[in-house]
């Protein structure tokens, strides 16, 4: 049979029961959006997190004692690392968590040495100055920003760090190293910890064992690979919890199939009449499927687009709250590889829908025409 007349007739048939068609469209697009959003989100968050982690130091060395973290003397630490072959660009960090009002913020101390500069041409802060991430509250705009750590320090705010980098610096305060030391209770020549890179990530584990004996104090060494693994496990657990969203989605799918059954039942007299007019069971089944696809395909596309928009559209503020229980940075998730999630959503939603359509159509077209016309079909 020619496909154009079949499509045209299917459109007419749908137009005869627009409410049912709209209901099916809404139900199918909602189910698709829900399932696809869960799948895409999980994939995209993991991928984005992994991508950002690639820019973090390969190893972190922290000095620890009986009470946990301890300040690290810079000179002996650097000297110890340099003795280990394979350690690339060791450097110390001055960072920690202090209170800005009643909200914890992460501070990072920097200073203008060895040509160090901040991205985007932002001036390295001098003592008494600070750059704030977009998520740091600064209520008294005329006043400085008061931070409380070991000491209370008030800093003049030079400006906001770029919103486009919020995934890294959302609640960060970048300040001069001396101010950071004062806030964290570090003495000159001390740092929070030490980081270094390696030529290849695979070397990190063996280097960590080697480094563990190179320091004159107990240290805790964390590799990027270990961090990645730990968070992958965490995301997998959260993703599994997110899959609970499938339960209402599956219920909706059951209702959808029931609606399709109603659709098929209500269409029985018409089906009988069409058989009397020369339509074969195959024609009617094709009509039923064409009708289902005419509603289902746009609904499916709308659902996928909706899920895509929810996950990737810029300026999405509620997503971090949903994912991380925090009104954190606007996420710019990576859409790369989301096609696989879309394909999975297709398999989960569209195939059962098509099967249900086929089944309800098949049930209908089996009966004799007059039985269908008179409503005495199977």
């Amino acid at each position, binding site marked *: 049979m020619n496909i154009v007349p079949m499509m045209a007739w299917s459109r007419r048939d749908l137009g005869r029961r627009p409410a049912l068609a709209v209901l099916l469209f809404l139900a199918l697009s909602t189910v698709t959006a829900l399932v696809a959003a869960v799948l895409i989100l999980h994939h995209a968050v993991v991928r984005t997190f992994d991508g950002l982690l690639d820019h973090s130091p390969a190893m972190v060395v922290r000095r620890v004692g009986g009470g946990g973290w301890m300040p690290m003397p810079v000179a002996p630490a650097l000297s110890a690392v340099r003795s280990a072959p394979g350690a690339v660009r060791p450097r110390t960090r001055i960072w920690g968590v202090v209170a800005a009002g009643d909200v914890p913020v992460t501070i990072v101390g920097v200073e203008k040495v060895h040509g160090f500069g901040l991205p985007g041409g932002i001036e390295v802060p001098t003592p008494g100055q600070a750059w704030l991430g977009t998520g740091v509250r600064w209520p008294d705009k005329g006043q400085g920003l008061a931070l409380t750590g070991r000491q209370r320090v008030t800093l003049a705010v030079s400006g906001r760090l770029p919103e486009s980098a919020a995934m890294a610096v959302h609640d960060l305060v970048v300040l001069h190293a001396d101010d950071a030391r004062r806030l964290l209770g570090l003495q000159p020549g001390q740092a929070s910890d030490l980081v270094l890179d390696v030529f290849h990530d695979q070397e990190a584990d063996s280097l960590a064992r080697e480094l563990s004996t190179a320091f004159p104090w107990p240290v805790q060494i964390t590799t990027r690979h270990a961090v990645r693994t730990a968070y992958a496990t965490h995301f997998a657990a959260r993703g599994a919890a997110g899959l609970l969203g499938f339960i209402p989605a599956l219920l909706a799918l059951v209702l959808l199939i029931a609606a399709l059954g109603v659709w098929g039942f209500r269409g029985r007299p018409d089906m009988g009449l069409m058989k009397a007019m*020369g*339509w074969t069971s195959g024609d009617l089944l094709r009509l039923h499927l064409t009708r289902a696809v005419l509603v289902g395909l746009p609904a499916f596309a709308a659902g996928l687009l909706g899920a895509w928009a929810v996950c990737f559209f810029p300026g999405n503020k509620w997503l971090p709250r949903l994912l991380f229980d925090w009104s954190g940075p606007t996420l710019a998730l990576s859409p790369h590889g989301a096609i696989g999630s879309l394909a999975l959503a297709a398999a989960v939603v569209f195939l059962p829908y098509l099967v249900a359509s086929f089944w309800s159509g098949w049930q209908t077209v089996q009966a004799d025409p007059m039985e269908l016309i008179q409503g005495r079909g199977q």
Partner: protein
Amino acid sequence: MTLACHNLTMAWPQAGNNAEPLFNAVDVGFEFGQMTLVTGPTGSGKSTLLHLLAGLLRPTSGEVRDQGRPVSRWPAGHRDQWRRQVGICFQNLFLMPGLSLLDNVLQSLIPRNMQWSAMVDLAQRMITVLDLAAFMAAPVQILSGGQQQRAAVARAMVHAPRILLLDEPTAFQDDAHAERLMDLFVQCAAGGACVVVSSHDARLRQSDRFHARFHLDDGVFEAVE
């Protein structure tokens, strides 16, 4: 060449085992290229006979044979294919509400492997012949009874069927339109089709354009001279 009922018995299963069959062991033939009129009182089974001839119902026993082929015994799929050669106009019309007149007529053409534009042209010509051109795009439910009846005839005839079965096709027509319809039926028979008309209409009973006439009463077919 005939469309024949051979030893045909029809009883409604819903009526129970003791109910009288509608007709019992009927043997009757309808010639191709001829117009046949079937008359009979209400409830005598004229409509059921047409439904059996169209392959819409299966007989309780016996066969409907198209040129010797036992079509009523064929499986549903084969009967579906065969039914493409049949055009039927129901007494209750069974037009599809919510669709335009053109769409209702197109309904018969959709499963036939034609181009869409050719289908539309054919349907429009048929509608014009039946004096309904002004209502081409109108929803079928707003047409008058006579117009709806002509729409149902148009739907039955548009694909030039080899077997044309018409149940009270002129009941709601004025004389002029009844005559117009008769002209079309005669043309169809002249083209080689087997045309079977069931009717109470006195105008048809008195018409001399039928080649054969049968009276159905109490389950018995009688040829009327």
